């Protein structure tokens, strides 16, 4: 068996507030092969960002707690590393791009400093060399290197996101976690940023986990998809399989709710109901209240993960019946 780049086993994350415990991620299993581009899809609050932040171990320490699980990166459990060792992984082997480029850059430091800082942290080079490489990175994302000395407020939103991407790729990471990198940008800039990311990915050979709620972006950019719902991964497979043969009722519902160019109906078909309250999750299948196929068994017992075809797994009893 080829070595997995990333293997998440039984990851559970809780957020604690004064009264409640919020179960954000529940027993998530996820693997990523080297070079793979995985789209992590799901609606707001499904736990996508929490999974990414767990991998980086940058969850807010005061509220969040990883209650169980392992995150193996090339066989090494990141959750067991000391903070000092984790710092060597962060930004170096695994880097992250954040959702909102407007707030992701420090307003009082130059972009050049912010990029060079990451380079200098993980490489034994002088300040000048780091600045020089920061310039190279800027050029790579299509910004002239003369702008190294400028501050974030002097850049537009799309350019800020390019800077964030340059920063994340500065140390040539093996794994890039992109948390909705295009959500805050308008559509024309989205396409530009995605094109650029694709180019860089091919050039640098980086594996990517792309967090998004946009199937269009997934189809455009990813090779595999994992669909999250209420802190669980309910379906995972290649883009081809999931788009052509979605198995989980939720995934099917997501596709049905997309506007279609061919259909004549003018209304979208939304999935009825809301995601369950993450402070009080149902005992059985998380989706059963909204599922048109739900049976009594669904309400009592949580389904296991069944493989419907090689590499395509579904967390639903219906997949078992299909056997």
């Amino acid at each position, binding site marked *: 068996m080829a070595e997995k780049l990333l293997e998440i086993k039984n990851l559970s994350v809780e957020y604690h507030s004064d009264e409640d415990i919020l179960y954000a991620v529940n027993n998530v299993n996820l693997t990523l092969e080297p070079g793979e581009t995985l789209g992590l899809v799901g609606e707001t609050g499904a736990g996508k960002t929490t999974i990414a932040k767990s991998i*980086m171990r*940058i969850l807010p320490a*005061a509220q969040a707690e990883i209650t169980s699980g392992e995150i193996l990166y090339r066989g090494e459990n990141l959750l067991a590393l000391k*903070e000092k060792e984790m*710092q*060597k*992984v*962060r*930004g*170096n082997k695994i*880097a*992250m791009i*954040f959702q*909102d480029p407007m*707030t*992701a*850059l*420090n*307003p*009082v*430091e*130059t972009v050049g400093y912010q990029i060079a*800082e*990451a380079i200098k*942290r*993980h490489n034994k080079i002088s300040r000048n060399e780091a600045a020089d490489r920061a310039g190279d990175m800027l050029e790579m994302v299509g910004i*002239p290197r*003369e*702008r*190294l*000395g*400028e*501050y974030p*407020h*002097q850049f*537009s939103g799309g*350019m800020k996101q390019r800077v*964030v991407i340059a*920063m*994340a790729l500065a140390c040539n990471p093996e794994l890039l976690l992109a948390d909705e990198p295009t959500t805050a940008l308008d559509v024309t800039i989205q396409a530009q940023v995605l094109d650029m990311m694709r180019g860089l990915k091919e050039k640098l050979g980086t594996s990517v986990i792309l967090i998004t709620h946009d199937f269009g972006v997934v189809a455009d950019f990813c090779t595999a998809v994992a669909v999250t719902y209420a802190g669980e991964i309910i379906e995972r497979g290649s883009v081809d399989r999931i788009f052509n043969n979605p198995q989980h009722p939720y995934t099917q519902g997501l596709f049905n709710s997309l506007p279609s160019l061919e259909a004549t109906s003018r209304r979208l078909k939304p999935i009825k109901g809301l995601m369950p309250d993450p402070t009080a999750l149902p005992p059985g299948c998380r989706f059963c209240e909204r599922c048109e196929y739900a049976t009594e068994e669904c309400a009592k017992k949580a389904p296991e993960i069944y493989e419907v075809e090689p590499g395509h797994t579904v967390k639903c009893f219906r997949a078992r019946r299909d056997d």
Partner: protein
Amino acid sequence: MLKYIGKRLLMLIPTMLGIALVVLIIIDLTPGDPARVLLGTNATEEQVEELREELGLNKPFLVRYWEFVKNVCQGNFGSSIMTQRPVFSEMLMRFRYTLVLVVFGTIFSTILGIPIGIYAANHTHTWKDSLAIFLSLICVSMPSFWFALLMIRFFGVKLQWLPISGIEDWKGWILPCVAMALGLMALIARQMRSDMLEVLRQDYITTARSKGLSERKVVYRHALKNAIIPVIMVIGGVFGSSLGGSLITEVIFSIPGLGQYIMTGLNNRDYPVIQSGILIISTLFAIIILIVDVVFALVDPRIRSQYTRRKKNKGGKSDDGTGKEAKKANATA
């Protein structure tokens, strides 16, 4: 930037004219008469009237205002009615004392308050933070005169380590500076803590962490540089208001400073002392606020860019070389 400073300095002129007007109006409305104070209760009404005429107190309000402004413009701040000594040189002499007190008080409170605030912010939800908040709450709410008296009792009377009043050598400064600094320190610490907490929640702090930076670097470089900006404002305000507000400390420790001088002037209805004293202190305050604004601009590039003259082709968003221009503009500012 220089142009901005120049503009601000020019704006001091109308400010000073306004202050002079307000001070004169208040003096005019306050009961009491320097001639009566000077001559004592035994003097006859005629004698008092004669002295009023001599001091120019009978002139119409606007004439007095005009003469005051004219004299100040010529560098003449008048002389005390009581002591006949010129106000400006008298204040200059006392200014040294107040300045030492305020400067050391501010420095002391800053170098303690800022680290305490940072420390508390980085240990929220622990007893260390609670202790820091509790102590600073005590320091803020305790009147400084009471604390000064406690210190005199303990360090001066009981242990006899430090002199209890007067300034003979450096030892004499310790208690007054500490008394002055304590409340300010708590104020600064509380401000620092809340700003730090606010900044630590920001996305760019997560970004900094995700780069693999050490916690030290995240806190002291990325967070502090942002969180310190409102604290600078507080320190500037504290410094400025202590110039006039050091009175209590000066009285308790018998320091011949500005506060005492003006207080005596007020008691004696010594109009030139009051007028010029308040004018000078207000001007100093305005200058300090100006300095704070300049420091703001130095720390925060967003503010700096507002003051920097925009180059014509600094559109910035377009490519080729404009970045260099903008950089130059920043550098010259």
